[in-house]
């Protein structure tokens, strides 16, 4: 699949009026996420890695966004959402319980740990969680559906879309600090925003994106 915003490099804004010191520091800090577990055990981390690969599959031709690292960081630093679904325990406890329960389900259904299953089988376990069909002692009353919807998917996808890699894919300019937006109407583009390629006009968009700062 050709990229939607060919040639767009959000980090080219780094030293332009689009970004200031606060933005540069925030992005640097995000990119410098520790790559080893601080909250999870190594075992949990490996299971989480397998889950991230199914929830947010990434192409092989570029370095992966280290999604387990971001989830681990959120839990280790106890960065909370500001709200919590009453059926779910606090986020760290929810994750620990959820990972163990998904692994239990993998054992129960396919006879092996989640991380060793074929991708289709991993998907099958996750689909059952999504449908709320997984129950058992390991869940300790936590609905698998609520865990999937409100903990597992958001924590992984939010981490992904908070990175320049994802911003390049979706044509996002990163933090609007200091430069914000001038054209607020739908489908209008400011000169410092990414150019979306129209079908068969990728070269044109690539050229325009090389000037976007």
């Amino acid at each position, binding site marked *: 699949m050709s990229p939607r915003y060919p040639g767009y490099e959000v980090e080219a804004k780094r030293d332009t009026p689009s970004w200031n010191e606060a933005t540069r520091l925030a992005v640097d800090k995000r990119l410098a996420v520790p790559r080893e577990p601080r909250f999870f055990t190594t075992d949990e981390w490996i299971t989480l890695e397998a889950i991230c690969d199914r929830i947010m599959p990434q192409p092989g031709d570029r370095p992966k966004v280290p999604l387990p690292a971001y989830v681990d960081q959120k839990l280790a630093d106890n960065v909370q959402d500001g709200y919590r679904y009453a059926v779910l325990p606090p986020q760290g406890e929810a994750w620990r319980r959820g990972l163990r329960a998904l692994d239990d389900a993998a054992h129960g259904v396919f006879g092996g740990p989640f991380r060793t299953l074929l991708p289709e089988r991993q998907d099958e376990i996750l689909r059952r969680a999504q449908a709320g069909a997984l129950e058992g002692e390991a869940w300790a009353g936590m609905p698998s559906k609520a865990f999937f919807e409100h903990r597992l998917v958001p924590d992984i996808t939010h981490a992904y879309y908070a990175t320049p890699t994802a911003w390049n894919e979706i044509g996002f300019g990163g933090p609007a*600090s200091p430069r914000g937006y*001038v054209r607020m109407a739908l489908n209008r*583009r400011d000169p410092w925003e990414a150019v979306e390629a129209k079908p068969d006009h990728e070269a044109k968009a690539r050229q325009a994106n090389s000037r976007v700062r």
Partner: protein
Amino acid sequence: MLAILKRPAATPYVELAPGAAVEAARGLNRAASVLAASVLMDSAVEHYRGSFHNRAMYAPLVSSALSLLAGLHGHTDRRARAHPVRDAVFAAAALVGLVGSGAHLYNIAKKPGGFGFQNLFYSAPIGAPAALILSGLLGFLGERTRDNAPGAPPTIAGVPAGRFLAAATGAGLLGTVGEAGLLHYRGAYQNPFMFLPVTIPPLAAALLGLAAVGAERERRPLIRGVLRLTAGLGFVGAGFHIMGVGRGMGGWKNWRQTMIDGPPIPAPPSFTGLALAGLAALGLLEGRRR
């Protein structure tokens, strides 16, 4: 104030200087130019922001540029007769402004919420095209003022030109005050100086209104003073707006955003343009100094 209102029974009649009508017309030409320059820059910035989404959004740029040139041409012209090309340019400017007002009104009306503050603040500005109407109108009235037999007191549509112009300029000032008032209200009058354009120009408009129906051939230093203040306000306002842009996040370094999202720098000089027209009207009302 009473001195302005009373009409002395025996006003000593002072003839207008022979070239008074042309002088006033040239003043109106300058006023039309200043207003046109304001519209040209303002609509260029704002319609660029609107990505010239509709081709008609180029119209005010072309029309105001022509009105600006016609005004400058009129400034250099000392003949006592209207110029057909200037006349056409000014009439076209007023027409384009009128159509633009209609377009902006439609733009606001079609949005959810209609004429609520949200749309009045953030949609196409309702009062902006009116500045182009005023540029065209003042230029056009300048041509009418000019188009009088030398020596005879100039009239427009049978009314003494000074009275006609004072009334028209006063009305134009009130409209511009409305625009500034609306947008400064949006800006929450966060700087006390934002009250200036809703205090001084209305006073000038009121005094011009009184002068339009008051005695002729009488010195009116108060109006003259207030009109000069109003003219100065255009420059002061632009200065404040330049400061305001600099206070936006990223300051002037981020001018491509702050100049568009910030206060419009070319807008305040429209007060200068209207004040120039008011002074031209006053010149005709006062006549020659004894």
